């Protein structure tokens, strides 16, 4: 199970992946893995988090890094 913070982060990263104008930069294997995880309702797992992160870093690296920095700051407080 993911922590509440990581779950919120995952949701934000998923939003990025689904809104990106560069979805073709996500490797098909990663994209399909994400789709399978959603279908099997296994998105909110460590594996799900890693897959969404990989996809987000591929299509929107700058936005993704910005969000990760924000969550790290919040986590330290």
């Amino acid at each position, binding site marked *: 199970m993911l922590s509440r913070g990581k779950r919120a982060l995952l949701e934000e990263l998923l939003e990025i*992946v*689904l*809104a990106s104008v560069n979805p*073709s930069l996500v490797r*098909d294997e990663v*994209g*399909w893995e*994400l*789709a399978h995880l959603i*279908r099997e309702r296994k998105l909110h797992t460590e594996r799900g988090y890693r897959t969404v992160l990989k996809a987000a870093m591929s299509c929107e690296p700058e936005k993704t890094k910005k969000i990760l920095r924000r969550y790290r700051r919040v986590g330290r407080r």
Partner: protein
Amino acid sequence: MGAGNVRFSVEIVPRDPLWRTCIYAMMVDRLGFDTIWLSDHFFNRNVFLTTAVIAKWTSRCLLGPAVVNPYVIHPAIIAQSIATLEEIAPKRLIMAIGAGDETSLARLCIKRENPVDRVRESIHAIRRLLAGEELTSHDSILCFSSAKLETKTAGDVPIYVGAQGKRMLIMSASHADGVLINWTDLDRLSEAIKTIKPIISSRKGFDIGAHLIISIHEDIAKARKTAIPFAAYLMAGSNNALLSEIGVSDEERNLVRRLLISGDWDRLYSVARDEWIRVFSFYGTMVELRDFIDELLNQGFTHIVFGGPWGPRPRSALLSIAKLVSELKPNMGRD
């Protein structure tokens, strides 16, 4: 009018990699919408192949290739594709046919001749082929010579028409099972429904759909920006009479067309005007969308199609639209 019998559907444009289209389709299916309409343009993913894939990633929604074009695809091939899809997803198929826009057809060097006749004859041909009939016809619109599908029959797949103009609307009301009216401004939707209501009064179950281009966000400027390319695409493909009515010159249309083809989005955003963005799309907040949908239900629409882009944050927008629909239609089936 209440929303109890109204269908609420989503249009997905198969422009994305298929994995992302499948994710959106799963969302729509699980959120309880009635139908997933999949748009058809030659430059996107193939609509029938995409529908076949989506069928395996969803379990509940009706699936509708829409609006397929009988100039680009022979009606026999449309019927063949629908019959095959019906085998993949039994009792979940629906379809819409229409004459398409001049811009897309021009890119294939296809002339949009006799559009109303072409669509009408195609409806009848598809229906008969799906029912297992053999067709022979040598008229100038469509030609068949002992054409018959050897597939399973699928004669009860509803056939809708994607329509805007008065003649196409009247034809749809007489010959199709439903219509998807491609306007997003209230005045034109209201005019359209007035045109078809007298004709369909004797046709029980005829479905009147408003096929909307929606972009919602609490920041209206962001919603507007997201709506512009979609509205521009529709504007650039519209006929001269309509463009003249809404004050768009040939020069402006040609400029927008060039910007769309070259993908010069910054320039497109700077030249876009509300006078035409508002005709071809709805952009605004969720509260405004609620008022807009209420007005459509009052006018008598029985089917609302939420077409993309949905908003700058499409996933959130889709979740918000589903929430709105569940308020309008509390018994909407959710997974």
